[in-house]
């Protein structure tokens, strides 16, 4: 009611005041008014041009149109009911498209700041990038790792189609923290084939910090931190969203639905559920047999947010059953040679939705309770407890009674309590101080009948941090922080006596032996790690839209259980993996900078970085071991000194009303300075170009053509080894090092917004991925020896909000 009244008022005040325009003033400004927090379009927002004393009201889709603009500088004020108006200046040199951002629902957002979920919570001098909800929605049927690749400098380490680990500027796995709802995910991301347990549909935005500067969440994020943002909260609302997506390749799709309800007194509830189902994917020439998946996610959020205090409960459940390509399950080196030499998978069957062995079944529960209180205008306090339960089953192809028995059965239980306080909030030196305690117990079920790859252990962590910002002037802001982490790992592990002796552990760890049972030996090693992390940086702003960020981060990371304890045949990788009890923690020094400028219709951004890593733990092939099952390559975790540096660059240009182009390039250089050779698993350079046509009057039509060129990685270490071929009675070289050739992919993406279901916005999307059905293999897919990547796929999606 009040809304309509306000509009009428604005229209009444402004319309008669439209100033007279000279004839040359025929430029137009168009775009959307967007809620900065959840990236939704704000219907009926007003856009007011001060110099002309003229305003317009955006339509029901948040689109605005101002015509009759002369060349020159304008001050534009955007406002919306219950939003703080946002004023910005804008140079008009021609007709342009400009999205205007507003922070919606200020009252609720202020509380969110206390929750530690807003972007201010990481130190802002760190290079970072954000993915908004529209990008995440487009990846509704994919995984977190797929969506993140939309960010310059992010690539993926994959196992087949579905298991995707993000790589941030060359680093992955335990070097990347994933923060969901303010909780650090503990999801057994130890193996290269373990993907993060996150339902992308539960996120309303994603921020990625490149480097270890998000000290609040952990000091060991040598690669970076991915912060999954929850929905923004609005009082007295009922809001819902349902989306359906169908994909031709894999003959499956995704369904997601959510409902949000809140009252006037700060109470709110949100329920979300999603389901994804895919059958076998198809490469251009054949079906990739046994590559289907079934993924479900449910999340519940409720609480009471008030300014003075509030609490927040969150629970989520994630379940993924993922089939691993049948042809990738091999025996010994002979099978590997056969697979490498064969140009196509050794097992190809007709399409099926079945998820057969080999496969993974993973479940993850996350529960969190949080309480915050504003102690004074300048001081906030927040305490949080969270609980996570992970269960991971991995099934291999087995014989007899064990056919349906898991080969790996791990249960990981994590409790975390943390507290933090914000001090001097209103001064120009705001500080945040926090402490954290975490206990984690891993249980490896012996019923598998296969020796444990990861042992039983108990891990305790204690940490404290302080971060601060110093506002020197309107142009310059400094920030910095320190964090200390203590980690104790208390493990109980069986070694084969032969392995214990071969590694020389009897010399160094003899006192940890508890008992000897047959040919096995039970040991109880206890490791303590003290890790220090720190960051310091500056933000400098000049001109209208130019910014320079520079940041140094020191980070230390204690080795993870697989780096310490791995021991034995990893059947799904067909290799013997050996950890090392002697591995010490990693130390990294990273300097990153970002310089960006929006000059009229032209935007550009350059982000160079340099990382020096001491004791960097990497997994590399190291010879062959003979067993009665034949020979197997041995992969050893080995510490080394390493340099990783690179450059991410991006530019975009708004040609006119309708055409926008966007260009990105990433280059990474990785060098093992200890061995004086290239570093393994460094993503190749890539070049991405995108042209977008938009005609917002045509039901918000947006049409994009995307080209991504991935070059061949020419820098890789030579880890090839000799294998004996008994039949030929000769040795042959096994080429596991060489990288696949480069490739060029083209995608077409289109969206339209049609008011089909009543008043609410309905978005239709149609896209084609791998338009040219290009046949390719990727260096960073663990299954690249066994089959091509996925071919062309048509995708149709409908989203309804209400």
């Amino acid at each position, binding site marked *: 009611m009040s809304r309509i009244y306000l509009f009428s008022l604005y229209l009444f005040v402004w319309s008669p005041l439209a100033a007279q325009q000279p004839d040359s003033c025929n430029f137009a400004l168009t775009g959307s008014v967007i809620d900065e927090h959840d990236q939704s379009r704000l219907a009926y927002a007003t856009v007011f041009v001060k110099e002309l004393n003229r305003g317009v009201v955006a339509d029901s889709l948040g689109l605005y149109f101002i015509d009759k603009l002369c060349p020159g500088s304008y001050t534009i004020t955007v406002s919306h009911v219950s939003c703080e108006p946002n004023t910005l200046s804008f140079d008009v040199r021609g007709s342009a498209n400009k999205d205007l951002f507003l922070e919606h629902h200020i009252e609720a957002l202020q509380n969110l700041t206390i929750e530690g979920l807003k972007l201010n919570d990481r130190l802002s001098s760190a290079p970072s990038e954000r993915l908004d909800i529209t990008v995440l929605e487009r990846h509704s049927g994919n995984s977190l790792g797929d969506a993140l690749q939309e960010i310059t400098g992010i690539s993926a380490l994959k196992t087949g189609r579905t298991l995707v680990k993000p790589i941030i500027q060359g680093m992955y796995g335990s070097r990347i923290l994933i923060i969901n709802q303010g909780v650090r995910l503990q999801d057994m991301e130890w193996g290269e084939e373990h993907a993060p347990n996150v339902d992308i549909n539960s996120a309303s935005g994603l921020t990625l910090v490149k480097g270890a500067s998000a000290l609040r969440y952990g000091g060991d994020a040598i690669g970076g931190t991915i912060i999954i943002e929850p929905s923004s909260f609005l009082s007295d609302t009922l809001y819902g969203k349902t989306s359906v997506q169908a994909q031709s390749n894999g003959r499956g799709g995704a369904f997601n639905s959510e409902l949000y309800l809140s009252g006037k007194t700060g109470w709110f509830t949100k329920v979300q559920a999603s389901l994804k189902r895919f059958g076998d994917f198809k490469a251009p020439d054949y079906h990739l047999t046994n590559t289907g998946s079934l993924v479900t996610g449910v999340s519940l959020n409720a609480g009471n947010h008030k300014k003075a205090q509030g609490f927040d409960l969150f629970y989520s459940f994630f379940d993924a059953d993922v089939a691993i390509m049948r042809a990738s399950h091999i025996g010994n080196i002979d099978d590997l040679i056969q697979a490498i030499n064969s140009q196509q998978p050794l097992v190809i069957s007709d399409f099926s939705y079945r998820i057969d062995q080999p496969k993974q079944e993973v479940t993850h529960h996350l529960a969190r309770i949080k309480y915050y209180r504003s102690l004074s205008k300048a001081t906030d306090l927040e*305490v949080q407890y969270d609980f996570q339960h992970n269960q991971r089953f991995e099934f291999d192809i087995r014989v007899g009674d064990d056919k349906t028995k898991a080969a790996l059965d791990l249960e990981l239980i994590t409790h975390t309590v943390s507290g933090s306080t914000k001090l001097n909030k209103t001064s120009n030196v705001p500080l945040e101080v926090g402490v954290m305690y975490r206990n984690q117990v891993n249980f490896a079920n012996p019923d598998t009948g296969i020796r444990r790859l990861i042992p039983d252990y108990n891990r305790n962590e204690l940490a404290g941090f302080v971060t601060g910002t110093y506002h020197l002037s309107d142009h310059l802001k400094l920030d910095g922080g320190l964090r200390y982490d203590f980690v104790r790992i208390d493990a109980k592990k069986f070694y084969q006596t*032969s392995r214990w002796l071969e590694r020389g552990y009897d010399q160094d760890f003899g006192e940890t032996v508890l008992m000897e049972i047959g040919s096995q030996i039970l040991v109880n090693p206890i490791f303590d790690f003290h890790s220090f992390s720190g960051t310091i940086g500056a933000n400098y702003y000049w001109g209208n839209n130019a910014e320079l960020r520079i940041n140094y981060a020191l980070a230390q990371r204690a080795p993870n259980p697989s780096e310490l304890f791995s021991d034995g045949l990893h059947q799904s990788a067909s290799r013997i993996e050996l950890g090392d009890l002697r591995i010490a923690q990693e130390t990294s020094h990273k300097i990153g900078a970002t310089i960006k400028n929006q000059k009229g219709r032209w935007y550009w951004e350059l982000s160079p970085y340099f990382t020096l890593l001491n004791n960097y733990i990497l997994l590399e092939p190291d010879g062959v071991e003979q067993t009665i099952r034949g020979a197997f390559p041995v992969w050893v975790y080995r510490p080394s000194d390493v340099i990783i540096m690179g450059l991410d660059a991006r530019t975009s240009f708004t040609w006119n009303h309708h055409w926008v182009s966007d260009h990105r390039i990433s280059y990474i250089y990785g060098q093992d300075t200890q061995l004086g050779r290239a570093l393994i698993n460094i993503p190749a350079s890539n070049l991405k170009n995108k042209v977008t046509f938009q005609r917002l009057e045509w039901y918000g039509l947006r049409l994009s053509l995307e080209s991504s060129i991935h070059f061949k990685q020419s820098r890789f270490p030579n880890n090839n080894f000799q294998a004996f071929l008994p039949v030929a009675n000769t040795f042959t070289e096994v080429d596991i090092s060489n990288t696949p050739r480069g490739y060029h992919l083209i995608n077409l993406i289109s969206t339209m917004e049609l008011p089909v279901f009543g008043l609410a916005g309905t978005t239709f999307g149609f896209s084609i991925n791998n338009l040219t059905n290009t046949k390719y293999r990727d260096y960073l897919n663990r299954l690249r020896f066994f089959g091509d990547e996925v071919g062309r796929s048509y995708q149709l999606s409908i989203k309804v909000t209400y």
Partner: protein
Amino acid sequence: MKKSLNIIFLIGSLGLMSACGSDENPLPIVEEELITTLIVTLTPAVGPTITLQSQDLDGDGPNAPIVTVSGALKATEFYDGAITFLNESVTPVEDITLEIQDEDEAHQVFYQAGGNAQMSVTYGDQDANGNPIGLVFSLSTGLASSGTLLITLRHEPDKNGVNVDNGDITNAGGETDIAQSFSIDIL
């Protein structure tokens, strides 16, 4: 401020108290599927039985299998062959051959002469579909020569593949459970 820190420490210490790990020792894992030992007996009509054995008691551990051949084969001789698979890491020792017989359609043993060894192997058994298993076979030697005999146990091979029933492994597919090569002298 002081009060807030008290709250943090109170909650922290509650967490510490609740987080007691179990002090029980984990159970050792009994690897029931493991094949540690392969024994081939080659019995001629007259003369001593020749035994080929490979024993790998630590499975995927660092120790290579111990491979023994009890003696040379005679030239132009005909041997009755039999193969046994054992799991000697458990007590009592488990005879895996019986498990293979139970799932005979899902297994096949392949024998390949390598180097210059003059010999050939003919299957002596069949599964329910009339395809060979390879637990029982005959081996005939040619002229004096030396080379290798590679013995491969495949799990879920394609027994209908081209020439697979004749002992040609090329089109067999499946996974390798055992692959062991023996040095053979034919005198």
